[in-house]
């Protein structure tokens, strides 16, 4: 039974043993690269994904801004549209990160995921590659909106932009990891709508993107503090508005028990959230299906 009788030409030479760690790093790179390639190639999606934040800013923001008038600022001296603008950047990151990661479900539906999962690479590399792909796309989608700053009366300078890049990256990473974790549990596109309605929209509404998270009813205060997106959007707002003549920008900040959280702590919470969710995603991917 074990004797091999060769008929025809001799089989291909034994492949050299592969360094699995290097192989997994290469896999992370190529999985990430594929996502970026698809992202750039799909220009229409890019344009379409900018339409929503613009609609929010132009219609919703301008409308509320004029009806609230000066009543909004609460002594900080900003208009509603200025307040909302960083929130919309956050929204854009939130939606793109989760959508980007959800392409896993798409790949499953169209068979490509199989090509990835049967490759001789560690499954964790797939989860990480996908999370980083989603992170990059979402970061770009968010940071593109910075070009709108002059139109909403927000001043940016090089320093604030440089500060925003890591903050946008951290928010994108946390939510992309969240998306990968959810996608790894979903077997079909049917579950997608459910995720949209029951996870993404509440996360968006409770994140402080649209209204300050102060003086809310008790139950809502609790929910907003449990929403991971709150900890990613708040630092973005504080940095975006820091250079726009806002008096005491920290008074806008997220509080717990009346204490304003430092930006570094918020970023840390977001990072930790991303790391935990990515861990869950890795575990889910390693289960053989």
């Amino acid at each position: 039974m074990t004797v091999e009788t060769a008929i025809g030409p001799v089989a291909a030479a034994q492949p050299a043993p592969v360094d699995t760690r290097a192989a997994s790093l290469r896999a992370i790179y190529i999985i990430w690269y594929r996502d970026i390639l698809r992202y750039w190639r799909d220009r229409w999606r890019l344009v379409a994904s900018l339409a929503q934040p613009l609609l929010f800013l132009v219609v919703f923001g301008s409308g509320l801004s004029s009806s609230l008038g000066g009543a909004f600022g609460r002594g900080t001296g900003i208009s509603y549209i200025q307040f909302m603008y960083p929130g919309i950047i956050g929204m854009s990151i939130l939606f793109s990160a989760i959508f980007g990661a959800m392409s896993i479900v798409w790949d499953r539906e169209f068979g490509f995921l199989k090509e990835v999962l049967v490759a001789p690479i560690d499954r964790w590399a797939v989860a990480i590659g996908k999370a980083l792909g989603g992170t990059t796309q979402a970061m770009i989608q968010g940071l593109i909106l910075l070009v709108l700053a002059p139109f909403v009366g927000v001043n940016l300078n090089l320093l604030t932009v440089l500060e925003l890049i890591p903050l946008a990256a951290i928010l994108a990473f946390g939510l992309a990891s969240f998306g990968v974790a959810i996608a790894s549990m979903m077997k079909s596109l049917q579950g997608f709508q459910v995720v949209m309605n029951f996870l993404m929209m509440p996360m968006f509404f409770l994140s402080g993107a649209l209204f300050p998270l102060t003086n809310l009813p008790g139950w809502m205060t609790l929910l907003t503090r449990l929403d991971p997106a709150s900890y990613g959007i708040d630092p973005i707002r504080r940095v975006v508005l820091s250079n726009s003549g806002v008096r005491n920008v920290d008074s806008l900040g997220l509080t717990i028990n009346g204490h304003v959280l430092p930006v570094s702590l918020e970023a840390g919470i977001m990072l930790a959230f991303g790391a935990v969710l990515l861990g869950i995603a890795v575990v889910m991917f390693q289960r053989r299906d």
Partner: protein
Amino acid sequence: MIEAKGLVKKYGDLEAVAGIDLEVYGGEIFGFLGPNGAGKSTTISMLCTLLTPTAGIARVAGIDVVRDPAAVRQRIGLVFQDPSLDDQLTARENLEFHAFVYSVPAPDRRRRIDEMLNLLQLADRASSAVKTFSGGMKRRLEIARGMLHQPQVLFLDEPTIGLDPQTRKSIWTHLNELRDTKGVTIFMTTHYMDEAEYCDRIAIIDRGKIVALGTPDELKAMVGGDVVTITSTAPGAAAKEIEDMLGVKPARDNGTLRMEVPDGKAFVPRLVRELSAPVDTVTLRRPSLDDVFLKLTGRAIRDEEVSARDRNRAMASRWMGRRR
């Protein structure tokens, strides 16, 4: 190159694969033939490490599929039944992706991609998005991809399903070429009987078990001689006469009687001479793998995918070929 012993896969009470033993030699094209639901895909999935066997052992390229699946995967190429390409990317980009995840050394990547694109005649479309490809081109690209990391065994699950006869033929030409130039062992499943004839050896699987294994000629020799089929408006009477006068017991399917005889050329004139029951048509042919399957299982392979017209055409071409 591939060995399996007592391979079993159960889904709850259902035994999809009920104990399979087989050995595939290096450099051969091995066909796994059977009707839909016979356990072909389940078996190939276990050999490819995609499913864990419930019992039994399997080794591919000398490596146990349960103990070291990653090492097995590095040494095998896979072409799935369902498409698994990225439609948005170009042919070359799909291959580049594969080269990366299969750790093809950087200096070799381009050369091997070009070689495979040339071998499977896709070089001129290398930079086109896969979504613009025909079904046959996609299949060829998947085969090119499966060969990119120089596997010792190429597994193909129903590689020609849904393709037109001409494209199917060209896929076979390519597979033969790959075997000859690269020395790769090819293990494929199919439910097209006519295709199985191209294989060096075939295992016929039915209800999770191998019912026959051998070269196409060996298997066909299991059917006694030639196959004679007659249609009659009085099949009952004809069947009785044939059995009484010619000593052959025909199998009846409505108005059609089918019998296996050692020497068909001598049998047909006798049949026509001696039969008083009306006979509309008489056909004589060499046994096909369909007949082998029929003999072994008592059932014909019913394949939903192939339209009746396709089957007739295949039958017709076989006939034409013989007459010339």
